């Protein structure tokens, strides 16, 4: 499974960057730069909306995600159903605004709870990759030598494992609980963060302000935490942001292989994977979650690009 990492380009950072007043603090400059970028701001709005929707799932959903009325299976969304008697605004407030799935569960509720699962996966996986990859990468980059060599071997080891094989083994051994699906993706996904962290720390180690701090007698640890971390944060935050849609996609892929989160818990990835075969007639089952994933993917990539340009001091050149 390849997780997709987005490059930066959606916006043009240097243009906006040049307009920034020199008097402001770096943080305020960054925030201003970020909000001057329309796409990034829109991305942020969507991210907040989707995450909020997921958090508020029990409030927004009309039923529980596993509540099924068997005789109502496969009902079209009233707004898209030519046979429906309801006209436009009314059909949105029908019993099943987005129709029902194969066993008669309200699709809207499934979608909202699916957002929650997907967001949990989306945020947890990059967090785990950070928790594993960053300390390793930082240590490798900062200390070099033997530490670096050991970490590099570990990285080689991890990249050399066919991750799909590992997924099958681990998920078969330990079960497909949500936390296992998250753990698995985290365990196999930290290599990228590790390499980024290593590169960052290796470059920063040689920078003047570090030498200066050392000359002032600061301890290695406080240099690392107080100076280097702050400077390395930008790219790492960006990587984190972009890792979120990657994890959501990864979960979709696992679901397609029958390795997704256990039923009846919905996730967008699983909904897409399971319903693609319905698409010829019951298109809404496939297309609505696909659309949701697509929008999420875009929102996060715009947000990530925006953050990258806003936090990248070199963008000010």
């Amino acid at each position, binding site marked *: 499974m390849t997780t997709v990492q987005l490059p930066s380009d959606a916006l043009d950072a240097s243009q906006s960057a040049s307009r920034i007043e020199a008097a402001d603090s770096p943080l305020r400059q960054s925030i201003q730069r970020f909000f001057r970028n329309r796409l990034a701001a829109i991305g942020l709005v969507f991210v907040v909306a989707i995450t909020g929707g997921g958090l508020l799932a029990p409030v927004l959903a009309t039923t529980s995600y596993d509540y*099924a009325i068997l*005789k109502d299976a496969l009902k079209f969304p009233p707004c898209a159903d030519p046979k429906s008697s309801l006209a436009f605004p009314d059909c949105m407030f029908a019993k099943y605004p987005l129709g029902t799935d194969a066993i008669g569960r309200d699709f809207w509720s499934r979608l909202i709870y699916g957002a929650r699962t997907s967001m949990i996966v989306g945020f947890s996986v990059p967090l785990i990759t950070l928790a594993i990859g960053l300390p390793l990468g930082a240590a490798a980059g900062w200390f070099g030598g033997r530490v670096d060599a050991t970490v590099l071997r570990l990285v080689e080891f991890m990249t050399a494992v066919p991750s799909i094989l590992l997924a099958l083994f681990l998920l078969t051994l330990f079960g497909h609980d949500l936390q296992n699906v998250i753990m698995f993706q985290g365990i196999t996904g930290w290599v990228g963060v590790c390499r980024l962290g290593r590169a960052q720390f290796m470059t920063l180690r040689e920078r003047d302000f570090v030498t200066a701090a050392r000359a002032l007698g600061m301890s290695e640890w406080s240099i690392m935490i107080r100076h280097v971390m702050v400077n390395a944060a930008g790219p790492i935050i960006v990587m984190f942001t972009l890792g979120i849609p990657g994890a959501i996609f990864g979960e979709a892929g696992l679901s397609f292989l029958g*390795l997704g989160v256990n039923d*009846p818990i919905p996730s967008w990835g699983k909904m897409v994977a399971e*319903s693609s075969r319905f698409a*010829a007639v019951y298109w809404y089952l496939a297309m609505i979650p696909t659309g949701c994933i697509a929008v999420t993917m875009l929102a996060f990539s715009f947000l990530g690009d925006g953050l990258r340009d806003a936090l990248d001091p070199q963008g000010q050149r």
Partner: protein
Amino acid sequence: MAMRDSRFDRRQAIRGLAAGAAGLAGLSGGRAFASSRFQVGSDAAPADQQVMITSWDGEGLKGECMDLYEGVYNRAGLSDLFSEPLTRMTKDFGVIPGTALGWDCSADGKVWTFHIDPNLKWNDGTAVTAADYVETFRYSADPKHAWDFTWYWNGIIKNYTEATKGTVTLDQVGVRVGSVPTDFEVETVDPVPYLPAMMLYSWPLNKVALNKYGSGKYNINVSTSVTSGPYYLAEWQPDRRFVVKANPKYTGALKPNITTQISNVVRGGSNFLRYQANEVDSTEVTSPAEIALVNADPELSRQFATNPQDFRTYYMFFDINTKPWDNLKLRQALAKAVDREGIIDAVLRPLAIPAYSWLAPGFPDANQEALKPIQAFDPAGAKRLLAEAGYPDGRGFPKTTLYIRGSAQVDKDVCQALTAGFKQVLNIDLTLENLDQPSFMAKLNAKPTQIAVGWLSYGMDYFDATNMLGVWLSGGRHSWKNDEFDRLVKQGGVMTTEPAKRSEMMMQAEKILVEDCVGIFVYHKLAGFLYKPYLKGEILTPNSFGYTGLQWPGFGTATLAIPQLYISNDVSKFR
């Protein structure tokens, strides 16, 4: 679901089934059977267009051989066409002569003689004789061969089990050539009245080739393959396709109309889409999505046929040695909380019949009407039973996982409907967990079993109640142990003289099983097949139970499909 078109009146069909299907396997079978002639319609396409194309899912440990006695689970597409079994099955599930023109049984019911058609020839010119069958059966018991289906003959054929353990030599297995070279004698451990039905699985290998090459794999090589069946091997490419063609030297009863069969090997993808794109002539419809699409499309609905195939029953089971499942009231509560009709209407219609017992309607000694009330849907009763079991309104019900074998969407959907029903009726939560087949079966077969609650299915291999009921014998698939059940099935199984009493015993045994609620029987599967309109023949029309399409065991030498099925002129509109 949109369509409520019942292709056949189910109630009527079930009545018919209960009436028929009795006395399938007589002790001596019809010598009178003449090699029948079948009429092919005047609309048949020319010979060069009599090509049938199917696809074969190559995923898994498959594609090693072409013969059942070489390997059951690892056969390739178009297998078992290079010889014929002793008996065959009509589309009404009657056992009729195959290569055996008739058979007799000794007075004690333990020695059977099958009289093989003396006209049968291998395509190298030699005769098909009992020696081929003897050699094949011995080979199957060889511990070095390690055949994967030995359980089928274990405890049936004399010394078979011992031979597989290596405690007796292969020539002591109870199969031998009779007084003439075409008489095949089988000696059984106990009387086995259903032996002719079991002999549907008796495709012989060629003795000479088997001895020469040391295994049945001579049949996967075009240059070494030998056939006495209606087809010969023309191409064997396990990564691309298999091709067989009509055997010009064939002397048997199944003269084929379809001159070429092509089976394309696929791994993944959707056969349903291949069918819709006119790339295959027939496909099985399995996933709920596909069922829904067929139901929503009048054209596809017309091409749809349904029948029970191996009379598979889907059921949820409990390990009664694990708490709290030792509690009968709890098991009963769950059994009565299942809205089978509702689940089938939503997910499976028309590919299922609600199951309230183990044996599917139409199967020998099935007794579904009488057993139905025991596990019938009764929400109020279920609630009461749950309270009596100690979990009023679901309070205190322990965390439970329902394990599912594999991750087929149909199983996932049915189990989600089941658990949704348990939640609504009983207010209890069961979580679902899919295990792949090896993990599931390993955990299930472990002693003690590691699966307390699971979802499974079982399909028959021969037409006798002992086959299906045997699953529940102690030491079988499940941990359930009931001495009375064991006694009834074992004693009844060997009864030859009083068929009515035997049936009675089988029905009693099944009643014990259903009443103990060790399994919640949810549905009997009907297989759904799409056939292109140009596939024609008497064999596809409804059988006496109202089931359509090719009945079990399908388009092969164990049925009469080969001489009946043909491709009509309409094929030119599709290819």
